[in-house]
């Protein structure tokens, strides 16, 4: 267990290091910085721009700047946003909290719908329900979030915070429903024909207990895997959903920072997004081990 945790930790640190280094290199190599546009301004002299760049340390080589950024980040200081003039850390964390709560809502909605339909279908084996699930998977997987968010905007009669929250959560949830539902439907369907389920039935357990205690646990692991993987998609999706529905969050902050070429802010967002994704995947893997003890013994041997 500890070994696995250590391995995941090393993997996570490696991933974040590589992602941040590549992003940093890209951002500082090509195309200029936050002060490039000042150069076209006739009222600002070239010396002023150079001075500004020196103040912000933009005249030093890329590797040095990345080193400085990394050292500061490790100490918990992510610098100041060029555009918002506030510390990146506070900005990123407060916006992330808002996106995270919507994403969590989306995951709960998707889980509830997928689990309900999957269990009903496994319990009653209605043919029409199976067909409905199949078409629901097709429909939800091919309805992009940008389309849904615009439909949500058209339907959103009152634009108070609570209804906007729910619309955003539902819009984010729809593509996730497709992947979880597919896993639940197939996984439960397979589990219902397995020997241990037959045994549970033979013991005289009620069908309800058989499904909830035995079949569901067997079907849960692949669901957890895709759920962990879908978190990155949720963060990416929040870019569009937040922009369209006018909510503040990490996605809309990202758009603003790209438009203003606010490099410290972009770096902060990339960092927290990759860290969050890594955390979600690790959590999913941990939950799988709790659910399935066999994985535990596999890891240690």
């Amino acid at each position, binding site marked *: 267990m500890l070994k696995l945790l250590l391995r995941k930790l090393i*993997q996570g640190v490696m991933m974040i290091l*590589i992602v941040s280094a590549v992003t940093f290199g890209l951002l500082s190599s090509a*195309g200029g910085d936050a002060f490039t546009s000042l150069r076209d301004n006739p009222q600002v002299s070239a010396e002023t721009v150079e001075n500004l760049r020196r103040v912000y340390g933009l005249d030093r080589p890329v590797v040095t700047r990345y080193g400085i950024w990394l050292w500061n980040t490790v100490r918990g200081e992510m610098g100041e946003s060029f555009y918002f003039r506030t510390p990146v850390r506070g900005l990123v964390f407060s916006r992330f909290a808002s996106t995270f709560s919507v994403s969590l809502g989306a995951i709960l909605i998707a889980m509830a719908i997928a689990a309900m339909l999957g269990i009903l279908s496994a319990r009653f084996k209605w043919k029409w329900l199976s067909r409905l699930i199949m078409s629901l998977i097709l429909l939800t997987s091919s309805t992009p979030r940008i*389309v849904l968010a615009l439909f949500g905007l058209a339907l959103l009669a009152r634009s108070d915070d609570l209804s906007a929250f729910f619309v955003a959560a539902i819009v984010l949830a729809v593509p996730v429903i497709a992947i979880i539902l597919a896993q639940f439907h197939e996984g439960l369907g397979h589990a219902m024909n397995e020997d241990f389920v037959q045994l549970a039935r033979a013991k005289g357990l009620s069908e309800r207990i058989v499904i909830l205690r035995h079949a569901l646990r067997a079907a849960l692991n692949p669901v957890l895997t895709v759920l962990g993987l879908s978190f*990155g998609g949720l963060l990416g999706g929040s870019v569009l959903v937040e922009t369209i529905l006018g909510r503040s969050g990490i996605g809309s902050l990202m758009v603003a920072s790209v438009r203003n070429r606010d490099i410290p802010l972009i770096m902060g967002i990339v960092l927290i997004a990759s860290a969050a994704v890594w955390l979600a995947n690790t959590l999913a893997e941990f939950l799988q081990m709790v659910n399935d003890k066999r994985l535990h013994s596999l890891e240690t041997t």
Partner: protein
Amino acid sequence: MKNPPSNTTGCRKSRFYYGLVIIAVLYLAALLADFLSPYDYREQSRQQPSAPGSPARFHDADGNFSLRPVVYGTRLTDPVAQEYSVDESNAAPIQFFVHGFSYTFLGVIPADIHLFGVSGKSPNAPRIQLLGTDALGRDRFSRLLHGARFSLLVSPVGTILAAIIGILIGITSGYLGRAVDSILMGITDAMISLPTLILILAARAAFPLELPPVTAAGLLIGLFALTGWAEIARLARGQVRSIRDREFVIAATATGVRPGRILFRHILPNISSPLITQVMLMLPGFLLAETSLSFLGIGLQEPEASLGNLLTGAADPTQLRQHPVLLLSPAVVIFLFALGSRLMSDGFGTKQECYRKFQ
């Protein structure tokens, strides 16, 4: 097999053809965009901003029935609320194969014939705007066709590039195994879980925000290819590993065939069908990435049209509630494309399975 168990997907070959029809129609419309659109997609008609669709009826100004639909002119009655009234006295019949703005058909043959339109050169002649006009008075139907042309051409190019990168990484990893495999698959797994859109945005910030269309298209394709290869790499690696130790591969190795030839002549043809299925699944993802960036104003820029920057107009709630159907028409095209690719992918996958089953 009388009663197939409910959990198997069964043979849904027909899905492939449904999807193929949808995709084919979309591409046909995109390729013939100039011929199908009645107006130049950049031409502004400032007297008619945000107009609703042109009223077309089957009776002329006197109320007599005519088989040929007639378009009526509209007048802007309230410039603030952008309300239009139908001008009954100003009518013109819809005509087919009319001469309009000139273009080069399929990029080669110069032409000026359009499928339909309203003849009449006078500036007050009624215009045929199937989906109305945007805020600058540009014909939305023409813009939709040209936007679809850009988006539908960019996404397969990006998909194919990403697929090539992914398949190369995947088969190398699967065939060589050991340390190469664990390093490459570590990177691939990280890539799958990372929030792609946020990374694309971050990389996009390294380039100037305003870009000419060709550069923008190239940049978008490059960004998608560099971020979208991971899933197909994982699939290719798994497939290679599953047949790496089969007899025909061992036989080829034993007769001294070089590894490169084994990979491309013996292994790759045998794993091509799951890979093709995956490529079809990737198509809508790339369309969406392009759409999202253009929607946010950092992909293809005005006055050029893409499905994404057409949707920017729909992000205004008051406008959206006034003309939901007109403004969401690009969204419908995106949905159809996603649905079509998904159906093709599903059908293609099961087609192979069916084939194996009855072999």
